[in-house]
């Protein structure tokens, strides 16, 4: 027989006004298994807690029910008190007779009856409760950051500055990401490279950061505090330890006319190349598909001219395993391709806008490169087809974004601002030019953003036309843009020299595959899902994995940097302890009854269920059962409700406890 103590709180008058607390206490004393019951004015006060502690000792209580406010309010308080009295904290529960009873009912008789019922429920629960010990897992104080754009760089620097080791992995040959491609940034128009490149150099020079460029995530195993991540280092064909970055290989390479990806295909590069002059690391990589040596076996010029002998045509992909305790995912975004429908994607192309077919229809990122001093035109706005300066430029917003019929219903968030910036940059560089913008709405929330947009309209003379473009076509040297101005209610036709499409921000290629490796969830657009939209915006539902930047959804630079620092702070919090302690509400498998159907594995949202082989002494396989990794289990209990043989049980919410509660109704 249990010896439960019931403590009924008056909460001043909050409970006692509508609930007869003395009656609830005396009724509780009648419940079988209750050894002691009393009521007190303020249970959460010091004397109240002492009363509880004293009663536990005096009456040899083996469980406690505090009938007071919501457990969300004071469960920790009373569990701590119970623990101080020598009781297992998980044998202390709260009966919520304030939020769920006294505050919501006026009839004293009904409220008192309900309060008694609630106490009875909780007494039954505690009677069947078990002592639980918090689960501790060790923490490897080393972080992995995936993605070397501004988000990854910021997170890596913050964590490294706090004194922890960071492994930064970037799939491209250089870190920098999209921000390195931008010309100037809104709303201050400061040069992107000027603020970006020092951070890139900081990463390269930081003693706590190990940088792996041209590398990808191959496999992720383990759980919070204890991940084992296999990295694939793609063959660079240049030995990073020998290369001095002199660049002579690039000047001598005979293959010089390869479209440069960094300039959106508008500049040219060699087959052995660094993506851009400020690349970090400044170590070239051989593009094997375009290299004569790899294609025909005849050339080898770069190897001949390389002083330190760093060029290595035999190099192969290499794998390494990194042990880390936390992962920051910062894989960023890509821009919507409007001419081609991406394979397997629900998203339709925008063939009617002529991108890909008409050379002077470009996307926003290409415009950034044209406007950038380090770009293919040296910062002059020249149109791609004939290199002439465009005098009439049409910008079209929401291309792909907010177009449900095209498969994307979200707003890409940055386009309104960057289009306003583009009109300004254009106006600064082509004084006699005219910019037109077709837009649905100008969405400019952010510090100094609306002022910036107004400046584009009022001072920089951009003509904003509210309406969408129906069609555009080539007519001689011009591109005829046909659209509607819905404010005036007329059809508009503009003969443009250049058309810039503000295409939608999309999840990075392969984002879904990476998510599957990491065991994190993603939405239908392949953007990664945070644990809680409001209160856990950087955490993944998978413990130990954090999100930073546009991989979670379209974001501008300030938001990305904030989130990256937030993710870094979360990692530092995790690393502040040697052992992780977590609530022991986790599922456990009864191996005796488990038939190994693994239905639990299918429904587990955390991937916490593994297969476990049971062998006899001779090593013969007896059976396969499910095993729940307590470090990964989130404690939702879906496995238990699913298990056909009822052989998995969630501690703290066992069938026995719940059935006992229902029986007492």
């Amino acid at each position, binding site marked *: 027989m249990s010896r439960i103590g019931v403590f009924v709180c008056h909460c001043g008058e909050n409970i006692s006004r509508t609930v007869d607390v003395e009656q609830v206490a005396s009724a509780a004393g009648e419940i079988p298994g209750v050894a002691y019951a009393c009521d007190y004015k303020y249970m959460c006060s010091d004397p109240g807690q002492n009363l509880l502690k004293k009663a536990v000792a005096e009456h040899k209580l083996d469980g406690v029910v505090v009938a007071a406010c*919501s*457990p*969300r309010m004071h469960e920790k308080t009373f569990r701590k008190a119970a623990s101080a009295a020598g009781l297992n904290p998980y044998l202390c529960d709260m009966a*919520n007779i*304030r*939020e*769920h*009873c006294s*505050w*919501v*009912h*006026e*009839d004293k008789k*009904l*409220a008192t*009856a*309900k309060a008694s*019922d*609630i106490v009875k*429920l909780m007494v039954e629960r505690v009677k069947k409760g078990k002592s639980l010990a918090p689960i501790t897992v060790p923490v490897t104080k080393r972080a992995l950051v995936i993605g070397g754009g501004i988000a990854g760089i910021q997170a890596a620097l913050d964590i490294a500055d706090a004194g922890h080791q960071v492994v930064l992995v970037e799939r491209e040959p250089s870190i920098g990401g999209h921000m390195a491609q931008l010309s100037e940034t809104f709303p201050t128009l400061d040069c992107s490279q000027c603020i970006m490149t020092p951070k890139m150099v900081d990463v390269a020079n930081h003693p706590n950061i190990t940088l792996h460029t041209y590398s990808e995530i191959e496999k992720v195993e383990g759980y919070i505090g204890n991940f084992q991540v296999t990295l694939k280092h793609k063959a660079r064909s240049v030995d990073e330890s020998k290369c001095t970055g002199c660049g002579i290989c690039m000047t001598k390479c005979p293959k010089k006319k390869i479209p440069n990806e960094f300039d959106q295909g508008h500049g040219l590069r060699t087959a052995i190349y660094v993506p851009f002059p400020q690349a970090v690391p400044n170590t070239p990589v051989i593009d094997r598909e375009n290299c004569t040596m790899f294609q025909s076996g005849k050339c080898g010029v770069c190897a001949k001219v390389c002083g330190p002998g760093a060029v290595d045509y035999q190099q192969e992909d290499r794998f390494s395993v990194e042990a880390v305790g936390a992962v920051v995912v910062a894989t960023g975004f890509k821009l919507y391709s409007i001419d081609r429908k991406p394979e397997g994607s629900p998203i339709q192309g925008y063939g009617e806008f002529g991108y890909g077919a008409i050379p002077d229809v470009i996307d926003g990122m290409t415009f950034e490169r044209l406007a950038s001093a380090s770009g293919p035109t040296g910062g002059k706005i020249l149109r791609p087809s004939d290199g002439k300066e465009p005098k009439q430029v049409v910008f079209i917003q929401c291309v792909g974004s907010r177009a449900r019929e095209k498969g994307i219903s979200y707003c890409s968030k940055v386009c309104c601002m960057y289009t306003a910036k583009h009109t300004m940059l254009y106006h600064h560089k082509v004084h006699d030019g005219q910019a037109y913008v077709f837009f649905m709405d100008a969405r400019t929330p952010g510090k100094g953003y609306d002022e910036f947009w107004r400046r584009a309209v009022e001072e920089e003379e951009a003509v904003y036309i509210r309406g969408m473009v129906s069609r555009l076509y080539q007519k001689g040297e011009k591109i005829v843009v046909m659209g509607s101005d819905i404010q005036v209610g007329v059809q508009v036709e503009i003969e443009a020299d250049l058309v810039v499409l503000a295409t939608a921000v999309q999840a990075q290629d392969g984002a879904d595959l990476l998510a599957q490796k990491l065991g994190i*969830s993603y939405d239908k657009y392949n953007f990664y*899902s945070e*644990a*809680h*939209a409001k209160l856990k915006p950087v955490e993944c*539902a998978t413990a130990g994995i954090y999100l930073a930047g546009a991989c979670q959804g379209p974001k501008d630079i300030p938001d990305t940097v904030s989130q990256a620092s937030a993710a870094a702070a979360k990692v530092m919090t995790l690393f502040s302890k040697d052992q992780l302690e977590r609530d022991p*509400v986790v599922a456990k498998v009864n191996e005796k009854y488990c038939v190994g159907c693994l239905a639990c594995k299918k*429904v587990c*949202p*955390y991937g916490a269920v593994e297969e476990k082989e049971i062998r006899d002494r001779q090593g013969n396989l007896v059976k396969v059962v499910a095993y729940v990794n307590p470090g990964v289990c*989130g*404690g*939702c*209990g*879906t496995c*238990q*409700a*699913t298990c056909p043989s009822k052989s998995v049980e*969630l501690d703290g*919410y066992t*069938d026995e406890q*719940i*059935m006992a*509660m*229902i*029986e007492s*109704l």
Partner: protein
Amino acid sequence: MHAEAKQHDFEPKIVAFVCTWCTYAGADLAGTSRMQYPANVRVLKFPCTGRIDPVFILRAFQKGADGVLVSGCHPGDCHYMAGNFHARRRFAAFRALLDFVGVDLHRLQFSWVSAAEGGKWVEVVTELTERVRAMGPMLEFKSLEHEEQWSAFQAMADVPGVVNTPELKEAYDKI
């Protein structure tokens, strides 16, 4: 809502199975906002609606509940990512079974109440309570139990020495 307390002939027993993250917190909010609703509901807290085994619902009905409410986070908002989807799917199938068994589905309510929806909690609970009150007590399980016991009694009719007469049945029914 200071309606005078009405006297009802029948006070239904409503059992609510709720998840701790959304609906329980929503009910807390109804409390802190001092909203009023019928005192018939008894709340059982679960980590997630995904934890709720349909057997619990059956058991609640069997143990005298006149109405059952299952409520969790809105789809997509689950604290455990997908628990409420599993629950939704499970209960879609379970409803059909309950219907087949002969339980009036109006006695069973599923809803999504978020932590911010104290008002919705009040609405859902009030609506279900009043609906069930109008329907009257849930007798299906009780009559089933009655039948079972009678048939067990009848099975003993062949046993020598046990008398089985219409008078006896009448007497039994009066119990």
